[in-house]
């Protein structure tokens, strides 16, 4: 057992430990505390099991959240947000490293899993009825109730950036809607990406994980799990190391024994790496890694937009989720091309500054009108598959290259967003595409339809990650069986985006939560 006496145990949270070792035993160990980990841990704790959640990041409360993006990258993201995917271009990967994971720094978007995705999982990936519409619907209903999911009110706190996109989409009848979010009393501070200091966002560190502790569980923060421990083919715990979040000094060894099982829910990047470090050798491990790559189009208006007021993301459309193409300057849905989703996104000045074209006086001139800029994004339901493997120095080696069809969808989405900006009164648009003018006027819109289909010309951001340890019934193509246990070992499960076998074309938070809760219910019922 630990060198430390057990008074911290009664508190239920163990932060960074400098010396000695931390040794615990629980019924279930859950690695990762984002939507998957916290969702699974809560269901298991409510079923009466003793749960220990191990999270690499620290536990920050709203009073600890940073206000600047530099602070957010330093405090909330692994390696200051420096994780990238490399193909023929370099694309930053947005992830969290904090107790609550992505639920702390996302925009609180809650979209139910589309029925076509569930049908595809059933028919093409052999997932049977475990994740059918009824089973997932029950979980979505429960989560909606618990997290107070509601449509973002179009009132004073909605924000002009969101209102303008909503109007533009509704004028064209493109399915624009205020986004469903898990927030209570949003003040419109536009700071979802830094964590909601007002505590409006119902992130896992505020509700679900404290309940896990209240039910006798433990959260170990600042502890990176190195590997799963096996005895005769059975997962019996995890081993890792405490690491100080500020100094990055390594501290105590962390050893957690699991009496009943280990659930890995550490994200589509970290879960495959933990399994690889644990000696799991399956042909599909680290493969079938997918994302929704996205890019922003900035509109510049004569009137102030003031993105820093309002919901960070308040408007969305999935009208082109099944495909988009531009024909005769007009967007056509469901064309056999790849689909996109459209969202508003309030970018803070610090990120606008990095994204604007040029440097020196030219750059500053493009930031002088920051208050007049509106940012709308399209994210592609991409078909490309990448890999996530252990790098030479133990880091994530993520390889990913969007296909030409993905690029065509992104280009069509950017063209549409630029057109919507102009229809909304923008005097110019900044497409952020190398090979095009840094700023285009309304009569230059056709240029966007001919923008280069070269990944290196676009400023991609990868935010929704899937796969790397996907579920399915084909042992050659999947790492986890349809019941979410890792093939070839017992009592080891995956309950995060790494298990999702496809992209969704919508925000994945609700789906991850539902899948994790279904797994946890099965475990609780003795499956």
């Amino acid at each position: 057992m630990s060198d430390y006496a057990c008074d911290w145990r009664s508190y239920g949270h163990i932060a960074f430990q400098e010396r000695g070792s931390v040794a615990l035993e629980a019924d279930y160990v859950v690695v990762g505390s984002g939507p998957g980990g916290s969702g699974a841990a809560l269901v298991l704790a409510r079923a009466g099991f003793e749960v220990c959640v191990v999270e690499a990041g620290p536990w920050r409360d709203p009073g600890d959240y940073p206000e600047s993006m530099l602070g957010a990258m330093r405090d909330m993201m692994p390696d200051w947000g420096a994780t990238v995917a490399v193909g023929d271009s370099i694309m930053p990967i947005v992830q969290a490293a904090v107790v609550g994971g992505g639920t702390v720094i996302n925009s609180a978007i809650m979209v139910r899993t589309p029925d076509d995705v569930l049908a595809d999982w059933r028919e093409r990936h052999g997932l049977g009825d475990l994740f059918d519409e009824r089973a997932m619907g029950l979980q979505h209903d429960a989560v909606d109730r618990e997290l107070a999911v509601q449509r973002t009110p179009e009132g004073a706190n909605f924000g002009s950036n969101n209102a303008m996109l909503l109007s533009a989409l509704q004028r064209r009848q493109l399915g624009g809607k205020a986004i469903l979010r898990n927030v209570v009393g949003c003040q419109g501070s536009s700071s979802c990406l830094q964590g909601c200091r007002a505590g409006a966002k119902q992130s896992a560190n505020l509700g679900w994980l404290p309940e896990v502790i209240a039910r006798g569980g433990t959260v170990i923060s600042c502890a990176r799990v190195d590997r799963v421990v096996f005895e005769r083919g059975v997962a019996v715990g995890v081993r890792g190391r405490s690491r100080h979040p500020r100094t990055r000094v390594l501290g105590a060894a962390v050893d957690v024994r699991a009496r009943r099982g280990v659930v890995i829910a550490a994200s589509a990047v970290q879960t495959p790496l933990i399994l690889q470090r644990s000696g799991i050798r399956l042909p599909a491990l680290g493969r079938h890694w997918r994302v929704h790559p996205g890019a922003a189009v900035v509109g510049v208006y004569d009137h102030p937009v003031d993105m820093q007021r309002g919901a960070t993301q308040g408007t969305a459309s999935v009208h082109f989720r099944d495909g988009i193409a531009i024909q005769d300057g007009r967007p056509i849905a469901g064309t056999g091309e790849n689909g996109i989703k459209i969202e508003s996104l309030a970018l803070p000045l610090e990120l606008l500054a990095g994204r604007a074209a040029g440097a020196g006086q030219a750059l500053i001139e493009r930031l002088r009108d920051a208050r007049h800029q509106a940012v709308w994004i399209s994210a592609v339901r991409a078909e490309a598959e990448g890999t996530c493997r252990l790098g030479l120095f133990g880091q994530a080696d993520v390889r990913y290259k969007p296909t030409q069809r993905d690029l065509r969808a992104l280009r069509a989405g950017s063209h549409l967003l630029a057109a919507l900006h102009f229809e909304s009164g923008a005097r110019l648009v900044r497409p952020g595409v190398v090979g095009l003018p840094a700023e285009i006027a309304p009569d230059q819109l056709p240029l966007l339809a001919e923008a280069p289909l070269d990944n290196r010309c676009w400023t991609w951001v990868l935010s929704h990650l899937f796969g790397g340890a996907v579920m399915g019934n084909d042992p050659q193509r999947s790492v986890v069986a349809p019941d979410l246990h890792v093939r070839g070992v017992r009592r080891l499960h995956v309950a995060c985006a790494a298990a999702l076998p496809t992209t969704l074309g919508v925000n994945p938070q609700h789906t991850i939560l539902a899948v994790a809760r279904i797994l946890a219910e099965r475990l609780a019922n003795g499956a």
Partner: protein
Amino acid sequence: MRRLVEHALGAVFPTSAGIPGLERLDYGARLDEVLRGPPLMRLGLYAATLLFVLLPIWTVYTPLPSLLLSPSRLDRHANQLASSRIYLLRQLMLLLKTVGGLLWGADPEVRQALGLSPLGPDPGTFRGDELRVAAESPPRARR
């Protein structure tokens, strides 16, 4: 090396008609934090800075390090590099712009000049942190 980084960042975010540039701002402590950050980011920043200093001969056809360029040439050099057709150069400049943007965009003087409200603090604290007030901390571990 730190001076060179400051020079490059200052050229990317210069002072411009009523908006202070990085060279006028007190951002040393935050830059120190960045330079103490992940090694990969630090290495990238240094590589970008070195190229920035050495490449005026390629951008503005002047065989001098960027430190010795006139303000107008330095500005042209920075803009040319950021708009380069060579992807790697553009990416390294993007790193300089990203770090510079994080420092510049959070500065209260810049935000005031642009009509934006100032940002609050970044406490950097967490549960169990020695910097958090004792009352909020969990019970101390006993040896």
